């Protein structure tokens, strides 16, 4: 069955014609190239290289960035791209989020002119893959206490430490790495072949199986002095990147939710039990109605957030709310969709289990669900509840 995107309130009619054309371009590509191949990619645990090439050719990487060969689209268009990619798979959207919001964005915002000219055009075209090194084995929600450090050795920097859970790490040409220089967090551009740098892949994931997840290891990693990002100091650097990536996730999760809804609706209409389609029973209709309700609310949230992002009237707490809510409902929709599919829901003939397992990661990465609650709690009360030590 052809995919019918649920849009109960015609929210997409609020998009510009250009944004809708970008949506259709990505949606058609996902239908033709991603959906038929995603289960094999997951089984093999690989991110198909053809997808990198196509994303570059379509010109969607680093969507909202302007200049240096970047697309220069609106944040609404960026959101729509994430939604359509994640309708295919969260691992695919993760690739695009990391490339655009976590690797290209810091170079675009905090890099020198030379760095921008050198890296951004090749990253926008997909020729060079980027990754983002912030999380460490012992520092996830609390990146400020990271151990990785950089030392100024006169004519070069020396980096030591380790990063973990790094999407695209092993396949990346360019890593944007956050490390402490004299106790202050700074961004550094590390290249694949820099001495003392390695990026072994983490294996054994039951989630985001078509996405490459790696460790980044720095053992006396030596990089030239011109690889520091001059424009930012402290946690503001990585957090600005995360704001953009989280914005994309708030749209992306809706893509997974819509895929699960679409499959559950089709299944319920055609599955006969007790002589009638299960869609004719009240308990099933209640589940479908709840899914539609949550997806519609999520769409309005994401759309309005995009307007605020484009107008520059947003605060990070707005993004926290949308990321937290939309991933949460998407995961719950995937679980309810599995219920509606009965035993069939566990088969890879349907996208349900894959989306569900992916969304477990999406709920945790880019600020866990609980951390986003604490961000909003701090906004309401003015009292931070992350630590008792402050």
């Amino acid at each position, binding site marked *: 069955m*052809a995919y019918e995107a649920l849009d109960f309130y015609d929210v997409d009619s609020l998009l510009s*014609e250009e944004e809708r*054309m970008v949506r259709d*371009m990505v949606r*058609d590509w996902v239908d033709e190239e991603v959906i038929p191949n995603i289960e094999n990619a997951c089984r093999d645990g690989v991110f198909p290289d053809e997808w990198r090439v196509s994303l570059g050719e*379509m010109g*969607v990487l680093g969507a909202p960035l302007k200049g240096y060969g970047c*697309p220069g689209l609106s944040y609404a268009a960026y959101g729509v791209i994430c939604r359509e990619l994640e309708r295919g798979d969260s691992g695919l959207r993760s690739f695009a989020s990391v490339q655009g919001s976590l690797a290209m964005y810091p170079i675009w915002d905090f890099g020198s002119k030379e760095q921008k000219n050198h890296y951004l055009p090749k990253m926008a075209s997909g020729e060079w893959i980027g990754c983002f090194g912030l999380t460490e084995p012992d520092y996830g929600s609390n990146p400020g206490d990271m151990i990785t450090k950089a030392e100024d050795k006169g004519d070069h920097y020396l980096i030591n430490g380790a990063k973990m859970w790094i999407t695209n790490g092993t396949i990346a040409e360019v890593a944007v790495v956050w490390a402490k220089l004299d106790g202050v967090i700074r961004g550094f551009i590390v290249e694949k072949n820099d001495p003392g740098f390695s990026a072994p892949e983490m294996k054994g994931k039951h989630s985001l199986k078509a996405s490459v997840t790696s460790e980044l290891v720095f053992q006396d990693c030596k990089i030239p002095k011109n690889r520091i990002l001059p424009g930012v100091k402290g946690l503001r650097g990585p957090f600005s990147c995360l704001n953009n990536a989280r914005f994309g996730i708030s749209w992306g999760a809706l893509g997974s939710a819509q895929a699960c809804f679409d499959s559950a609706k089709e299944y319920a209409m055609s599955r006969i039990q007790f002589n009638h389609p299960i869609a004719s029973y009240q308990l099933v209709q209640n589940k479908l109605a709840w899914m539609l309700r949550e997806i519609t609310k999520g769409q309005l949230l994401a759309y309005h957030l995009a307007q605020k992002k484009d107008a520059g009237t947003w605060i990070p707490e707005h993004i926290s709310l949308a990321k937290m809510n939309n991933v949460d409902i998407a995961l719950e929709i995937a679980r309810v969709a599995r219920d509606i599919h009965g035993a069939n829901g566990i088969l890879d003939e349907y996208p349900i289990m894959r989306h569900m397992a992916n969304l477990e990661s999406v709920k945790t990465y880019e600020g866990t669900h609980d951390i986003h609650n604490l961000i909003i709690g701090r906004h309401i009360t003015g009292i931070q509840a992350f630590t008792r030590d402050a």
Partner: protein
Amino acid sequence: MNIAVLLKQVPDTTAKIIIAGEGVDENSVSKWSMSPYDEYALESGLRMKENNGGVLIAITCGPDRSKKMLTDAAAVGADTLVYISDEGVMDSTHVQQLLAAAIRKYEADVVLCGKQAADTNAGSTGPGVAEILEATCVTLVSEVSYTDGNYITMRPSNAGSEKVSTQGTSVFAFDKGSTELRRPNVRGIMMAKKKIIESITPSDLGVHLGDSNVHLDSQTPPPEKAAGQKFEGSEHVSTVVSKLRNEANVI
């Protein structure tokens, strides 16, 4: 070289449609797309332009919603977008008269179109337009190239396939070929947004459409699909195998 490509917007082949009265209820169509054979004509036109230089003129005649398809054509490389407003119900001959007039107005050297539209499947546009233009027409074309004043086309024949060359103004009606269609990209979409659609009316083209000579007398919906056959038990295996082999022709 001026390359005209004739395009028609039709309900997407994957979209659900509802039949009401004399045809499809247009309001029920969830997605409109370029007719699939027209996509091959457009792709071949773009390749001809890339190889020989020139201007690609995308022309459509239809309701206002068709303009969106012209913008889609611009996103993959169409240079000039021409929209002819349809005025009420027109038959195929009326549409051909308007398309032929637009082709003359834009001084096209060669015309590419789909062999038939995915909605009506009439298949008369290419030959009909060629007739009015007094141009050569080749149908069921899978590919076309241009060298030294000759258009070289490939089409199926009773011997397999044949290569046909034509000179002068020619109309080529495309079948689905092995040609890979290009995808739009963000840059193309952003350029397309700036392209102006030239809207013209039948009277701008100096065409006075007379009454239609074609009248729809009646129509019949396709017959309901017959129920499938059900076999239970191992004693039916040979019957099922024989039916699959001789009736369904699948084994």
